[in-house]
């Protein structure tokens, strides 16, 4: 078994500038935020971010000058706060290109990459101005001749996904909602996992079907407790409304955002965790109280 445990800074150092980078999670939930902050600290540039629906992660990467394109169906804070101010300003000022998708066409593009084909037909866009604006084309069904929209493959150079449990090889479990995370793993050339817990993977063998990410597809594993904060992580912690509220207020102007970035990201010491096995997988031991109601879990 290969040990892929590494520090966050070493893992993120492997992300090249100008890369297509997929981010797991959805809106304010289970985003790989510790890794996002490290991308900012390492002054990455020119990233094309891939996500079905982004919020804090996409917004702060646009504000910090890390992203130059965003391929997404939605970028915003839902009704929690509203529009994404940094993304919006960056697009309106021409600093970031909005590669507009519908969430389903992001999925289709990731499916194409997963399957090793150059494009994927998708039953979407039939009544939309998005294809003309973005250059999505139709292809003819070679059998019936009917036209269908085809989206180009989206092959991330790197997918960054935050999980509940991973072992040193990268076998990993996500509890609760999966979003597109497993599809991002299969589509990407390289996969960085950040994990709440690093576990002894031999204990996964009792219920391997709960392990939805296979370690052989993973390149780096990072121990990052609370690595989705200020976003939620199913069963472990909720959104941090205080932090997000401060961020959203300070994101409204360039000066106050710079101050926020300095205080909470650039000058904030990141405490690397010991990169070794922390404990046994405790799938069968987490209490109902800690997880809330997750009736899908095997007992």
């Amino acid at each position, binding site marked *: 078994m290969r040990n892929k445990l590494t520090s966050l800074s070493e893992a993120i150092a492997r992300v090249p500038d100008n890369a297509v980078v997929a981010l797991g999670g*959805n*809106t*304010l*939930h289970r985003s790989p935020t510790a890794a996002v902050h490290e991308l900012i600290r390492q002054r990455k540039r020119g990233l094309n971010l891939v996500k*079905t*629906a982004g919020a804090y992660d996409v917004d702060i990467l646009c504000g910090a000058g890390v992203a130059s394109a965003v391929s*997404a*169906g*939605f*970028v*915003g804070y*839902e*009704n*929690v706060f509203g*529009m*994404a101010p940094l*993304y*919006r300003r960056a*697009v*309106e000022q*021409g600093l970031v*290109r*909005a590669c*507009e*998708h*519908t*969430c*389903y*066409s992001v*999925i289709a593009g990731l*499916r194409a990459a997963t399957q090793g084909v150059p494009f994927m037909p*998708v*039953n*979407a*866009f*039939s*009544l*939309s*101005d*998005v294809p003309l*604006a*973005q250059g999505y084309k139709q292809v003819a069904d070679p059998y019936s001749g009917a036209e269908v929209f085809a989206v180009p493959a989206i092959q991330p150079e790197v997918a960054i996904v935050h999980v509940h449990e991973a072992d040193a090889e990268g076998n990993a479990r996500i509890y*609760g*909602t*999966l*979003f*597109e995370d*497993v*599809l991002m793993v299969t589509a990407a050339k390289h996969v960085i996992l950040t994990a709440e817990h690093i576990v002894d993977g031999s204990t996964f063998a009792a219920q391997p079907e709960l392990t939805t990410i296979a370690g052989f597809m993973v390149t780096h594993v990072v121990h990052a407790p609370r690595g989705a904060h200020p976003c*939620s992580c*199913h*069963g472990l912690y909720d*959104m941090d409304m205080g932090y997000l509220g401060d961020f959203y207020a300070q994101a409204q102007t360039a000066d106050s955002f710079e101050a926020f970035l300095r205080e909470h990201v650039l000058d904030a010491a990141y405490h690397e965790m010991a990169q070794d096995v922390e404990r046994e997988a405790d799938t069968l031991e987490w209490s109902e109280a800690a997880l*809330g*109601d*997750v*009736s*899908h879990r095997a007992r």
Partner: protein
Amino acid sequence: MEAVLFSPDILMPIVMARLLRNGETVFHGVASPLPMVAILLAKALRAPDLIYLNITGSTDPTPAALPRSTVDPALFAGTRSRVTLADLFDLSARGKLDTAFLSGVQIDRAGNINMSLIPGPDGDPHHPKVRLPGGAGSAAIMPTAKRTLLWRTKHDPRVFVERVAFRTTGGNVDRVVTPLCVFRRVAGLLQVETIHPGVTPAQLQAATGWPLSVSASTPRTPEPSEAELAALDAVDPQRARLIEF
């Protein structure tokens, strides 16, 4: 007799719930507190076998408290299965999704929505005057779901426009619920079906960006019943839905 006024946060979810049918599959996406409340309300009142689907991949969740974000893990509580978001889009794409709730920053007379952008002077979509959040799943769902119910908590001429500045998508729009009225799409155009209690035809016309066919004889939206009001309080006792107003 003077009409009893109901605030939109009470009337809208009740009207939206009335549009749902027992046994159908109903989906809402991001930023959808009112559909979340309306679906739970319909299940409580008259559609116990309605199948409630959302982005978390749960089926018929039983949230302990209603969340601010409609992607929140709270909407995964109580589910007995887990599907992915891709599974839900696939469901719609193959024509098996009965009803979807969607919304728009702009909604036009033909039921098209704009969630994408307001163009700048050069009309180039890559140099927008205003970049909006994007349509999320709507450009896939709205043309393929059997029917779409639109809602919007603001009804003014900047929202309800003759023609959207950018068409994120059109689709199978059935009705549009607003704080002032219910539109029904007939022959491809939105027509006023009912006006809410306390709203005058003149007020409704002034708030809408295209000429309406409304008069004193336009039907009124039926007032909420005692049972509907009680069920709404039971489903959303903390009034999580107020985040939309």
